[in-house]
């Protein structure tokens, strides 16, 4: 049996959320209330924060870049750049974030912004495994530390300097300042872990107990952390042969929820080690009723039969072994089914799309997951805790978002073409202008001919002159209207036209969409392969373990049958002797 990877993240997704200074505290005079917005620039920058606070770092970065291109002061300010650096880190682009922090720190920034930047830079180096640079950055933080990063900073300092004692001395100070921080119990837990690593069990136990006290009565993640702390305490106590203490911790862990399987199994083992077999049985029975895909359940099935045998309840032991062997067989066939499920084309995408539902606390550990992956997901509980699998899921989720975004732009490309086409048609106005030029030339020619005609009328007969004059008056009126229209059209400024470089620019952007879409699809395929590989490796482990347990059950079954036969043979000479039905 093993204690699976425990992972505590100090609210890493939120470590910059509180870094923002309020946009402004000065009320705008025209409002009937105190407004946060004091300028159009702040209004524009608010769009960055709108995405950022939803943790949609991709769109937040796009908005940030856009705001910077508009020379938005809030986006270019130190706090804006600090947020940008955080967004880049959160979006998995630490190499892009580093120059942002470097640039910030090379300028004249406030003490608080400087401390924040050094802290984030230290964290960034630590994530990249560059401990020397991380240590250097940690040492650059000085003076008062912003409360929202206080806990994280001290914890990071301990990690990079390797001295939990340094942190332990500051617990009281941190507690006084940031006791209500959601990160505080996690900080205590992680401190305890590092103390265990350095052999200071008493200090670790003290801190784990503080975690259980601080989270008492909590729900959700807090309750899970408390369960985790209690389980850790129990394991430490068992390692130190303090079984009573272990028993006490285990008794307080909830029988449902994230750590219930491990807790129930540990509880059973603690009871067995105390030779209190009857105490172990209810925990094992409860576990044995859960999904065969859970490693703790697999172990519980074999252990339950063993406990019955130890108690001399051979019939029940035999029954349990027979059932276990059958269920392990069913488990192995479930694994085959799971392998077929993961081979399905869209399974990784649907898996990620339904991740929240899959991770649903009650369904995940129950027999009936709420999504269609019931034959797959129960086998992946342990795998979900691994860094490699988590990173694969994160990267894949980001790639699916990118793919969707590029498909959107590919659709928009058609509209861009339609707009450009329409703009191109407006160039007919240019043709009209040319026509106006031609019309003007005709008008001038007509004017010259008109003068000739007037001279000609002087030499014609009276009767003809009158007819001509009437005709000329009508024509003059028509020409006058034409001249006015022509004048108005000539007076018009140039109609709006798309600049010539738009067409090639749009074409180039569309080519970039296609190229990036192809790259995205390639990376998705590659990552889906990795995801399938990790899942199959996990399924192989499950299969190997279940085959092993099935063999154990088979052996135990054979042994119990042999014992029964032997007992029968021995009982023949002593016919008439009575045995308990259970022993038979």
């Amino acid at each position: 049996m093993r204690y699976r990877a425990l992972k505590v993240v100090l609210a890493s997704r939120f470590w910059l959320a509180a870094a923002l200074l309020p946009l402004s505290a000065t009320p705008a005079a025209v409002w009937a209330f105190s407004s946060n917005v004091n300028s159009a620039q702040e209004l524009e920058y608010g769009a960055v924060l709108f995405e950022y606070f939803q943790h949609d770092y991709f769109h937040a970065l796009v908005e940030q870049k856009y705001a910077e291109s508009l020379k938005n002061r809030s986006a270019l300010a130190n706090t804006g750049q600090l947020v940008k650096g955080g967004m880049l880190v959160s979006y998995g682009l630490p190499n892009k974030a580093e120059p942002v922090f470097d640039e910030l720190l090379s300028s004249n920034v406030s003490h608080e912004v400087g401390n924040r930047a050094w802290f984030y830079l230290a964290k960034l180096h630590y994530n990249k495994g560059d401990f020397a640079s991380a240590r250097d950055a940690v040492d650059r933080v000085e003076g008062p530390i912003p409360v929202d990063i206080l806990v994280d900073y001290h914890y990071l300092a301990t990690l990079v300097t390797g001295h939990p004692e340094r942190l332990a001395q500051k617990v009281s100070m941190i507690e006084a300042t940031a006791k209500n921080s959601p990160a505080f119990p996690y900080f205590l837990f992680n401190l305890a872990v590092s103390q265990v690593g350095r052999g200071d069990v008493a200090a670790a136990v003290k801190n784990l107990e503080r975690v259980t006290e601080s989270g008492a009565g909590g729900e959700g993640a807090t309750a899970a952390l408390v369960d985790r702390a209690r389980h850790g305490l129990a394991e430490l106590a068992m390692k130190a042969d303090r079984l009573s203490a272990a028993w006490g911790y285990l008794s307080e862990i909830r029988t449902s929820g994230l750590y219930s399987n491990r807790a129930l199994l540990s509880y059973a083992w603690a009871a067995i080690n105390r030779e209190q077999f009857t105490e172990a049985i209810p925990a094992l029975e409860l576990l044995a009723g859960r999904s065969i895909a859970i490693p703790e359940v697999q172990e519980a099935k074999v252990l339950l039969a063993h406990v019955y045998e130890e108690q001399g309840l051979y019939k029940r032991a035999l029954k349990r072994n027979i059932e276990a062997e059958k269920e392990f067989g069913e488990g192995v066939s479930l694994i085959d089914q799971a392998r077929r499920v993961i081979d399905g084309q869209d399974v990784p995408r649907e898996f990620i799309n339904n991740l929240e539902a899959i991770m649903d606390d009650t369904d995940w550990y129950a027999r009936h997951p709420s999504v269609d992956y019931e034959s797959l997901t129960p086998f992946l509980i342990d795998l979900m805790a691994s860094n490699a699998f988590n990173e694969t899921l994160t990267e894949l989720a980001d790639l699916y978002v990118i793919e969707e975004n590029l498909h959107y732009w590919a659709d928009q490309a058609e509209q861009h073409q339609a707009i450009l086409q329409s703009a191109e048609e407006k160039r007919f106005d240019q043709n009209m202008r040319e026509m106006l030029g031609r019309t003007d030339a005709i008008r001038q020619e007509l004017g010259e001919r008109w003068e000739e005609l007037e001279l000609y009328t002087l030499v014609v007969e009276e009767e003809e002159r009158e007819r001509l004059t009437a005709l000329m008056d009508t024509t003059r009126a028509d020409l006058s209207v034409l001249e006015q229209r022509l004048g108005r059209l000539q007076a018009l400024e140039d109609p709006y036209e798309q600049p010539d470089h738009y067409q090639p620019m749009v074409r180039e952007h569309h080519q970039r969409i296609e190229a990036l879409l192809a790259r995205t699809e390639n990376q998705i395929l590659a990552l889906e392969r990795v995801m399938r590989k990790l899942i199959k490796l996990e399924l192989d482990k499950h299969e190997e373990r279940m085959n092993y347990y099935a063999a154990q059950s088979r052996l135990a079954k054979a042994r119990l049958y042999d014992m029964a036969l032997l007992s029968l043979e021995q009982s023949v000479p002593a016919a008439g002797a009575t045995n308990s039905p259970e022993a038979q």
Partner: protein
Amino acid sequence: MASCALVLALSITQNHAAAEATESQHWAEGVDGDQVSTDQGAPEADDAEAELKRISTYVRSLKSDVVDLNHDLKQMEERILYPSSTKYSVFVSFSSGQFFQLESVKLKLNGKLVATHIYSEKQQNAMLRGGIHRLYMTNLADGDHSATAFFTGIGPGGRSYKRATNIEFEKDANSSYLELAIGDDAVKQEPVFAIKQW
């Protein structure tokens, strides 16, 4: 990102003697640290991790390129669709939220319904923390215009709350933004809605 996290795997030895601690002191007092061994989590499949690292490098470069492209496309679209002289944006801002939980907004511009939006919980929270929602972008000629905003949500006492507010405004060359603002009136203990041109 998760480097702050520690991975602890404690191996359990099941062969315990039934030794019990004396109850007069805490059981952990005096426990030898060497009794409690720690080791790192089980190693992952190395080749899968190596493959993941290799892909991650490409993905990082891809992400960066896509952010750049999105920015360029956004700019390009604005150039094509919204010339700077007529470009006009409408934002929704929240300045407190003590008395109102915003669920949806409708916007009428010059008497015509031009935008509606229903806010998710995530979006509501983002706005409460200072995020500002770009509701609508359009082209608007210089001159007189009118705007009416309809807000629906949960008001004081958890009751359904609907309010409308309107503004007559003149757009000139220097104005490009309209802010639909929601705030609180602490004296009346109710939300306040206002529209302002920037």
